[in-house]
Structure formats: C-alpha cells, structure tokens
C-alpha cells in the first residue's frame, strides 16, 4: 500500500509538471465539449434551391413563396430553362432543383393531377435527403391546401382525412444538443482513459525507465495500479467539469436520473477503458506506435458507438461491432440517465456488460505485461 501511494505521488508530480500534458488533459476536452455540439448539428438549414418555372402562373409563384417562407431553404435561382438549373447544381450553387412544368396551374385545375420534377445534388447525402423530404412535405401541404380550397368552393362534404402528429418523448423540442452533449462527454472521457494511460506507460518504455522498474522487486500489479489510478481520477474530474459545469450552465442539461448512478457507471467504465489503454501499451514500444494503435481503435469506437448514427439503422455486421464496443454502452447509459431518467433496474445489464469488459481488458493486459522478455 505504501508503495502504491508513493507511485501515485510520483505519477501526479510528473503529470502536473508536464506543461504540454496538463492543458491537454483539462483544457482540450472542455473546449471540444463546447465546440463539437455546435458543429454536430442535424438540423439542416440554408438548403440552396433553384426553381425552374416554365409556368409563371399564380400557383407556381404561390408554391415558390411557400418554399421560401419555411426558412429552411434559400432561393438561389429562379429561371426558365432546366439547363440553367443543371448548371447551378454543377457549380454547387444549388442543392435542389425544382422544375415546375408549363401549364402547371392549368393542368392542375382541369385534371387535379400534375407532376413536378425534383433534382437533388447528392454529394452531401444528408443535406440532399433531408432537403428532399422537407420539400416533399411542403409540396404535399400545398396540394392539400389546393384541395381544401376546391372543396370550399364546391361546398361539398369534406372528405375524411388522417393527419399524423408526433410528439418527441424525453426531448420534446427535439433539441439535438440534449443527446449530443452527453454522447460527446462520454467520448471525451474515453479519449482520456484510452489514450493517456497507454501513452504514459509506453513513455516509460521509450525513455528506458521501465527497465529500472523491472529490475526492482516491485510487483507488476502495484506498478500498474500506480499508473492507472491517476488517469481514473483525472477521468472523474474531467467528467465532473463537463457534466456539472459545461452541460449544466452552457447547454442547460440537468440529468433527469440519478447522478450517483451515472458516477457509478463512469467509475466502472473508466476501469474498462484504462484496461484497454494498458493493453495497447503492452503491445507497443514507442509513443508513436501506441498513438497509432489507440487512434485506430478509438476511431472505430467513436464511429460505431451510436454517437452520430443510430445503431438500429446499421447493417447486421455493424451492429455486432457496435455491441462489442464499450463506448456504445456508456453512451446509452449517459443518454438514458440524463434524458430519460433510467434507473438501476433499467441499467443492470449495462453494468454487467461493462464489468465483463473491465475484467476482459485488464486480465488480458495483465497477462501480456511482462517484466522480462
């Protein structure tokens, strides 16, 4: 115990003397937590639309105004020929081109049916999809309006119609920040636990001090505990700043569920992710190698964790990877507790799975850690 305390003292001294590491550990995560959610915005605004109007009728201008009035679209062109619209897509000046055929109003009034043509620039897939679906909805509304007017004029009995309205549970205003911020916070804790611990141990290998440790009678688990505990503490502190300060006062996110439960899970999660860092360090000899290996896995952890994309919409093979990824569970717990108020009973399985991860990573690392080769 005395040895471990002494190792911890030495480790903290070194961390606090490292002028580059300290801002990295505390500053960067907070800056990222403040900046990233602003950028990771799923609300698509400013979709550039060009309208090719062959009709120039009252109906066509009403439709154009309706599109313009929603605020999602920016009318960047209004022209007579489709070729010009095509050119605007090529120049990236338009994301969508809506072509209104000649005699649009006429045909619509006479036959009640008319076709519009919509061209989508799919280079930015998300923008194209979202834009096209917004536009379809607007056109649907427009045709409903026309029907209504027709019916009112004819004064015939209104036909029955079904209108679907949805409400968003746990995040009533669909504020994307409410689910992005807890997710990004989970990811930042992962970076600190995974990267920093791996780099710290490998640094001892690189500068050769590990040899001095290895010829001493110190036991390997004492050494490892001395290495991991500081990053466990730092992970806790960074999380606290992120959760209790940044989330609360900048994003006004107050967890619905128990903060204690969240911290209990974090404590367990950090043990697992530090085990991962330790494992990386046992397979690498230089900080550069450790950085590359850790970066590879952390990228996969990040992209396949359900942070940015829904796991339910992944293909089967990707779902398997997502559920073998510890970050997935932590993000689920974060969102569950913060947004939904999940309790211990809801999260029992998550605790069990994370405990398995912790045992798995740490025992593999411990097995692979050798004082002599």
């Amino acid at each position, binding site marked *: 115990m005395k040895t471990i305390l002494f190792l911890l003292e030495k480790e903290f001294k070194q961390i606090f003397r490292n002028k580059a590491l300290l801002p990295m550990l505390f500053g960067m995560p907070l800056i990222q937590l403040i900046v990233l959610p602003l950028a990771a915005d799923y609300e698509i605004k400013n979709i550039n639309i060009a309208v090719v109007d062959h009709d120039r009728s009252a109906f066509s201008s009403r439709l154009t105004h309706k599109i313009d009035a929603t605020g999602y679209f920016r009318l960047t062109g209004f022209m007579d020929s489709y070729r010009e619209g095509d050119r605007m897509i090529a120049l990236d000046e338009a994301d969508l081109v809506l072509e209104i055929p000649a005699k649009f109003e006429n045909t619509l009034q006479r036959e009640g049916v008319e076709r519009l043509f919509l061209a989508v620039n799919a280079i930015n897939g998300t923008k194209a999809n979202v834009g096209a679906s917004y536009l379809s909805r607007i056109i649907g509304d427009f045709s409903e309006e026309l029907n209504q007017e027709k019916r009112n004029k004819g004064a015939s009995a209104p036909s029955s119609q079904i209108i679907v309205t949805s409400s968003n549970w746990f995040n009533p205003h669909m504020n994307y920040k409410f689910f992005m911020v807890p997710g990004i916070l989970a990811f930042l804790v992962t970076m600190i636990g995974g990267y920093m611990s791996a780099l710290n141990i490998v640094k001892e290998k690189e500068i050769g*001090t590990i040899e001095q440790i290895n010829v001493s009678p110190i036991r390997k688990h004492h050494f490892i505990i001395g290495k991991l505990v500081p990053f466990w503490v730092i992970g806790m502190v960074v999380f606290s700043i992120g959760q209790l300060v940044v989330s609360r006062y900048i994003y006004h996110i107050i967890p619905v569920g128990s903060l204690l439960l969240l911290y209990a899970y974090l404590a367990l999660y950090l043990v697992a992710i530090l085990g991962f860092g330790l494992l990386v360090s046992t397979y690498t000899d230089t900080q550069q190698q450790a950085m590359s290996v850790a970066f590879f896995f952390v990228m996969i952890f990040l992209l396949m964790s359900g942070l940015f994309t829904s796991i339910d919409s992944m293909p089967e093979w990707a779902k398997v990877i997502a559920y073998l990824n510890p970050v997935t569970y932590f993000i689920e717990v974060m969102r569950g507790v913060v947004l939904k108020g999940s309790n211990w009973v809801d999260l029992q399985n998550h605790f069990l799975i994370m405990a398995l991860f912790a045992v798995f990573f740490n025992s593999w690392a411990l097995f692979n850690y050798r004082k002599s080769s």
Partner: protein
Amino acid sequence: MEEATVERGIRCTALTKTFNKGATTAIEDISFTVEPGELFGLIGPDGAGKTTLIRVLTTLYVPDIGQAVVDGLDIATEVKALRNRVGYMPGKFSLYQDLTVAENLEFFATLFNTTVQANMDLIHDIYVQIAPFRDRRAGQLSGGMKQKLALCCALIHKPTVLFLDEPTTGVDVVSRKEFWQMLAKLKKQGITILVSTPYMDEATLCDRIALIQEGRIMKIDTPQGILDAFPIRLFALKAKATYSLLCDAQAFDGTQSCFAFGEYLHLTFLDQEESTIRRFKDYLKDKKHQEVVFMEVKPSIEDCFMYLMKSEKQLKTAS
C-alpha cells in the same frame, strides 16, 4: 543449481539468447565466472552482445538456453530474491527527467523498500558531488552528473552485485577517470561489479576481462595475461603520408594485419623472420616514403582484440 554450497559472484553456463524467433543471435554459448568482489570487464565493440548479456543476468531477458547464478541465486527460478540484490545501471540515461535529483533517489529507494538515509554510507562519496543540485530536475544535469546520479540510484538498495552497461560512453575524459575511481572504491566495499565498455583502454582497470565479439567470448583473462599471450611481434610504423603508407603496408605480401592506431600504424607479419622485416624496409624505400619511423612495440588490449578477431575469422573461413 544442484550444488549445495552457496556461490557468490556470477557464474553462467552456455547462455544463448536469440531474437526475432531465432533469426538473430545476440549471444551464443557464453560461459564465465566472476569471483565475489571482483571487478570484471566485458570488452567489445558496439553490437557485440554486451548489453544483451547484462540484461539476461539482470533478469530483463530470459535466455533461450543456459543457466546463470548471480550471488547464489538462479536467474530463472529465484528472480524475486535476485532483484533485491542486483544493482543495474543501463547504458542509456534512464531516470525520470522531470523529477529532481532528490526525488529520483527517493523513488528508487522506495521501489526497493528502503530509504536514502539508510544507505547514505554507501553512496555518500558520490552523493556529495551531486548534492548541490538536489533540487534540480534530472533532465537538466550535465552528462557527468547524470551518470553519477544513475550510479547512486543503482546503489541505493546496497546491491551485492552491480551491473554497469557502458557507464562511460559519452562522458568526458575527466569524468571517466573519476568514475573508475568510484568503481575501485565500491569494489573495496566487497561489491561484485560487472562492467561493459567499448573502450579498450579501460580494460586495464579491471581485475579480469572478457573480450567479446559477435555474441561470443573470445578470451577471458587478466589484462596482463591477455597482453602476455599476444603470440607474435608487433611493429609501429609512421611516415609523412599516412594513408598511402597504410595502403602500401596492407599490399605488402608478408603483412598479416595493419591498421591505424593513433598517429601510428600497427603492423604484424605472417612470419616472424628477420628477413621479412628487412624485405619490408626495402619495400618502403622503393615506395619512396619519407620520414619513416619503424619500431617494435608492446601490444595493447586493442591489438590483442584485433589479433583475436582476425584469427577467429580465419578459423571460421577455414572450417
């Protein structure tokens, strides 16, 4: 292992260590004995296997074949006890650069479950030299000071056997001298010391030396014994144009070896006949060398090393 009597010092038998799954042999069939309290030198060029051998003996590497007993403890089976008694100073300065001198010492003392104070008597002479810098970060010390600190750290737990891997590489001449004086003092306290060095001139400061080349020990003896065993006559040669002299001397049909040694060339002949020497002198005259100095000299350790290396190579090519 099978012997009941506890044997101090170092004894290793047929140690072999390979890397890359046997593709590279670092040391091969190394056997030697170091008496308790002896100052034993491993002499050889870079890449000879000195570091590997020291790492095997300090339990950092597990040998492929062979046994070794250090201070009465087997390096394979009694690792834990051994680590308490061995002092190791790696070739590369490897203390914590961001900790101060005092913190480094304290850290290594704690690793061995002891304190700096309890061992002050052993390190006192060295410690007084670095004491003025005790609050300075180790990374900011000069080369000689770093080396003294590393030695203090290696001695902090009163080891009975001390391993030093090229301790004087990259250190100035004065510090090198001081360092060997410190080693002599430690030897007086009964510590067994195994030191490796690529500097042949340091060999004479050891009690006994092993000449090591390409992972094999060529010869083990006292420095004087090695010098005395030099079997042939050695000549020193100098002239105004050194380089063309070297080329000409190597081209002479009676030459066994010729290499630069300080300002002189060191030369041996295939046979030790006076007639060959006379023939060589005439040969130099024909080549019109000026200010020629030619004399017989006593061999140094380096000459012995070169000679042994050459004859080993000839043995290899012959077989």
